[in-house]
């Protein structure tokens, strides 16, 4: 029980910290609304250019875009926790190793906390605005109650996958001298493969089939398409199954790697 308390205190701290920067949060929301709106317009232009080639309902695309904007702070690999990186780079990690918690669990909860706090603050005004926009740019209600429940579950699973992947980028920093460039390549790859740039159905058939199997699809594509009912039936079950599978694989591998990294530090003396 006390263990959970320990992790919960990270959440509280993070949430308070985010509150400090509320003006930044407001301006971020404004930015994201404009951004999402431009994107909706672009997709509509494509739809008007060739109706038959459009791979999903337009309203599903709109929902996808607004939900992505609402939960962007939770899922983007861009804003991986800078503090953790710094502590690895400048040796502050020594402190972390002194604390009576597993490094992996602590970083995992710290990262998850930061993301939930950030997204939690931003998603409410964003969703509120998206629900009252004029059609066809309005965010629709979920396709049904069961869709909404599954959306919530897969969203959490997706967050787990995202954080588990971020852990990899932290741990990699142990093994490289200059993680900056590597991180950039990583994140840009993930952005594309997770469906942050465009929903996966817009990709060519063959590319899409491969991308859907990768862990990244579970970050954005699966939950956001379940919401609108675009992903349903057997495809949906497969998506959720893959999410669970990757979450387990990433966490297990991450923990093993983390232990190796810790040993390395102990051996090398930091």
């Amino acid at each position: 029980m006390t263990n959970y308390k320990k992790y919960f205190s990270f959440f509280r701290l993070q949430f308070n910290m985010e509150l400090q920067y509320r003006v930044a949060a407001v301006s971020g929301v404004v930015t994201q609304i404009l951004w999402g709106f431009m994107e909706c317009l672009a997709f509509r232009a494509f739809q008007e250019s060739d109706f038959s080639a459009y791979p999903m309902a337009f309203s599903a695309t709109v929902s996808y875009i607004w939900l992505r904007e609402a939960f962007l702070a939770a899922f983007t690999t861009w804003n991986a926790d800078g503090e953790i990186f710094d502590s690895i780079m400048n040796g502050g990690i020594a402190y972390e190793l002194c604390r009576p918690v597993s490094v992996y669990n602590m970083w995992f909860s710290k990262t998850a906390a930061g993301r939930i706090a950030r997204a939690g603050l931003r998603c409410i005004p964003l969703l509120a605005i998206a629900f009252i926009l004029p059609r066809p740019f309005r965010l629709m209600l979920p396709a049904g109650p069961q869709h909404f429940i599954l959306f919530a579950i897969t969203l959490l699973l997706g967050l787990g996958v995202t954080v588990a992947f971020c852990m990899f980028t932290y741990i990699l920093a142990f093994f490289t001298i200059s993680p900056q460039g590597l991180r950039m390549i990583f994140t840009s790859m993930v952005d594309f493969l997770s469906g942050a740039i465009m929903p996966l159905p817009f990709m060519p058939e063959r590319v899409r089939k491969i991308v859907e199997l990768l862990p990244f699809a579970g970050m954005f594509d699966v939950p956001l398409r379940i919401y609108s009912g675009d992903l349903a039936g057997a495809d949906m079950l497969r998506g959720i199954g893959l999410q669970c599978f990757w979450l387990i694989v990433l966490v297990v591998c991450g923990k093993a790697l983390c232990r190796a990294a810790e040993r390395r530090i102990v051996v090398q003396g930091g």
Partner: protein
Amino acid sequence: MIIAERNPMFAKINSGIKLYFHYISIVLRSTMQYKASFFLMVAGRFILSFNGILGVYFMLSRFGQVKGYTFGEVLLCFSIIQMDFALAECIGGGFATFTSIIRQGEFDRILLRPHGAILQLLGSKFRIDRIGLILQAIAMFVYGIAVSPVDWTFGRGMTVILMLVGGTLLFTGFFLLRAAFTFFTIEGIEAVNILTYGAKEHGKYPLDIYGKRMMRICTYILPYTLIQYYPLQYLLGRTQRWYYGLYPFGVAGFLVICYAAWRFGMRHYQSAGS
């Protein structure tokens, strides 16, 4: 040198240019201290920007065209905007990162030097690492020219140059405007990014695909059509109005406004303290 001695105005400009290049040479030497990290960053940025191209490629191979623009035409438009932005970030890095310059008190040091703040900012914060983005934009531009059916004439060549110069100045102007806001508040300044990063991202498609209302906003409030939509029409032979190719000159007016805002901000800084 002889003219410089006779004319103090000329001497001032001359020493300014000399100082600017001295700054750049020192920035280069600084950067080259970390060669490995530098090249990784350049490579990272290079690869990063392929995201955008791949996105455009997938969309256009699915739909064939968007509002009549083919893949090559979009690519041309995209590469020009991308290059504008990369050049502006490279040259105007001092404005783009002004928030941290204020925060760390570096601006005080700039005010302690007997030169204009703008010159010092431009010189000391030249961002050579943006070269990755520029290279990538050039590659895309060349490919865009190869696949797009532009009927090249002297006038069209000049238009491309004007689009590049005008676009770079327009983005730099926005960075300057953002820096001017920074004098009043550091919080929430990120919202202004939609005007620059947003324009770079969404400006990859010719602006008319976003509809009439957006076109109007991007003409009269944020003058992006001056360096994108209008000259592009002339470039792609979609209009007989040759003067569309001269629209980038309009950016000069915008720059005057940005400069006035900067001056106003500077005065506020001096009277309000840091």
